[in-house]
C-alpha cells in the first residue's frame, strides 16, 4: 500500500486542518460588518489574503479589490489541495473541484445568452477547477451558444450539452443547458465511487447524496415560490436518495405538504431548525443558508470520525466557500448601504 495508490491522507489532512484554523470566525464577521470596504481589505491584507490584496491593490480598490482577492485566493487554495494530494485522494478532490468548472461554464453561458460585456463575464469566473484560463478565454470569446457548445465537445459536459442544445433551440430557454451541466457534474462525481466499500467513502457518498437531495428540494421550493408551472422533472438531478422526482412534483403545489415531506424524511431532525425558520419567515434565503450549514456540520462530523479520508478536505472546501460568500456578502451589502443587522442575516455562520 504505497502512498501513490491510496493517497497521502495524513499529509493533506494535517495541512487542511491547519488552514481551516485560519478561516474567519464569527468575531471577524462581526468586525467586518462594522467596517468599510477599505478597512476590510486592509484587515484581509494582514491575514491569509495578503498576497492577493497586495497583487491587486494597485489595480482595483474597494469592493472590487475584495472580490478579486477572494476569488483568486479561493482558486490558489484549491490548487494547493490538488498539488499536495496523490493517488486516490487526488482523484476524489479533483472530481469534487469540477464544481468550479461547472460554475464557470454556467456563468459564461449566461453571459453569452444575455450578451453581457466580456470584461464582466471574466470578473465572475472562479479560476479553480480543471479548465485552464486559455480555454475559458476561448469560451468567453464565442459569439453564440451553438459555437459555445461545440467548443465544449470532448469535455465532460460535451455529450449532455449537445442534447440540451436541441432542446434550447426548440424552447429558447437556458434551463435545459444549465441542467445538463449540473447533472453532468453530479453524475461524474457519483459514478466512480459507488463500488467502493470503505466506510469513509460510503459516508462520503451519503454526503454527496444529501447535497443532491438538498439541491433538488431548493429547486422545487424556488419553483413553487415563483409560482411558475415548470415541471420539477426538468430540474431534477438524479442520485439523491430521499426525494424522488415524483414525490417532489406531487408535494410542490402546497408549501405545507412540502414541509411535511421534508420533516418526515431522513433529514427531518437535522433540518428542524431550518424548517421552523421557513415556516416563520417564509424566506427561502435563510432556509438555503440553514441547509448549507447542516451540510457543513455533517461533513465536519465525518471528518472527526474518519480523519484519514476525503472528509476533512471536503469540509475545508465547503467552509472556505462559505467564508468567501460571507465576506463578499458583507462587502456588497456595505456597498449597497444595508444596515449591519440586515447584512448579518445574509451570512452563513456555523
Amino acid at each position, binding site marked *: 500500500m504505497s*502512498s501513490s495508490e491510496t493517497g497521502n491522507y*495524513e*499529509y493533506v*489532512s*494535517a495541512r487542511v486542518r*491547519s488552514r481551516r484554523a485560519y478561516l474567519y470566525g464569527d468575531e471577524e464577521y462581526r468586525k467586518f460588518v462594522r467596517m468599510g470596504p477599505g478597512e476590510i481589505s486592509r484587515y484581509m491584507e494582514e491575514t491569509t489574503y495578503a498576497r492577493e490584496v497586495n497583487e491587486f491593490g494597485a489595480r482595483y480598490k474597494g469592493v472590487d479589490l475584495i472580490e478579486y482577492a477572494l476569488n483568486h485566493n479561493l482558486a490558489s487554495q484549491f490548487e494547493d489541495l490538488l498539488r499536495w494530494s496523490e493517488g486516490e485522494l487526488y482523484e476524489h478532490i479533483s472530481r469534487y473541484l469540477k464544481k468550479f468548472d461547472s460554475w464557470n461554464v454556467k456563468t459564461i453561458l449566461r453571459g453569452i445568452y444575455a450578451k453581457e460585456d466580456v470584461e464582466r463575464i471574466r470578473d465572475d469566473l472562479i479560476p479553480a477547477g480543471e479548465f485552464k484560463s486559455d480555454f475559458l478565454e476561448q469560451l468567453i470569446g464565442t459569439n453564440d451558444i451553438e459555437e459555445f457548445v461545440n467548443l465544449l465537445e470532448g469535455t465532460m459536459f460535451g455529450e449532455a450539452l449537445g442534447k440540451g442544445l436541441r432542446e434550447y433551440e426548440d424552447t429558447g430557454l437556458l434551463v435545459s443547458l444549465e441542467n445538463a451541466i449540473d447533472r453532468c457534474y453530479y453524475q461524474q462525481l457519483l459514478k466512480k465511487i459507488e463500488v467502493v466499500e470503505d466506510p469513509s467513502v460510503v459516508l462520503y457518498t451519503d454526503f454527496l447524496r444529501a447535497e443532491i437531495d438538498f439541491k433538488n428540494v431548493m429547486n422545487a421550493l424556488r419553483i413553487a415560490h415563483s409560482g411558475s408551472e415548470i415541471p420539477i422533472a426538468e430540474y431534477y438531478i438524479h442520485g439523491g436518495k430521499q426525494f424522488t422526482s415524483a414525490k417532489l412534483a406531487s408535494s410542490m403545489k402546497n408549501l405545507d405538504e412540502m414541509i411535511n415531506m421534508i420533516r418526515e424524511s431522513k433529514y427531518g431532525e437535522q433540518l428542524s431548525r431550518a424548517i421552523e425558520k421557513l415556516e416563520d419567515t417564509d424566506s427561502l434565503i435563510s432556509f438555503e443558508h440553514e441547509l448549507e450549514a447542516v451540510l457543513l456540520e455533517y461533513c465536519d462530523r465525518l471528518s472527526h470520525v474518519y480523519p484519514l479520508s476525503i472528509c476533512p478536505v471536503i469540509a475545508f472546501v465547503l467552509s472556505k466557500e462559505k467564508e468567501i460568500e460571507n465576506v463578499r456578502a458583507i462587502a456588497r451589502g456595505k456597498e449597497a448601504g444595508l444596515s449591519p443587522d440586515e447584512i448579518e442575516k445574509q451570512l452563513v455562520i456555523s
Partner: protein
Amino acid sequence: MLEIILDLLANNAVLLQEHVSTDVAAFPPKAAAALGVGLAALGAGIAERGIGAAAVGAIAEDREFFGIGLVMTVLPETLVILALVVIFLV
C-alpha cells in the same frame, strides 16, 4: 521474503528436534534478540510514516509546529529503545 523466513523457521524446527538431546536452541539467544529489535524497529518505522507525513504537513503551514511535530514523530521510537533492553538481558 516471507517465504524465506518461513522456510528458515521450518528448517530450524527440524534442527531443533534433532538437537533436543544436546540442549542446543535452534536460534542462538543473541540472534533471536537481534531479530526482535529489528522487528520492533520495523513497527516503529511503519508508525512513524503516517505521523511524519502529518507533522511535515503541519510544519509547512506553521513553523511553530516544529517542536511538537518532532516529538510526535519520534514517539514510536520508544518501542525500539524498549526492545533494545532485550539485547542486554540475554
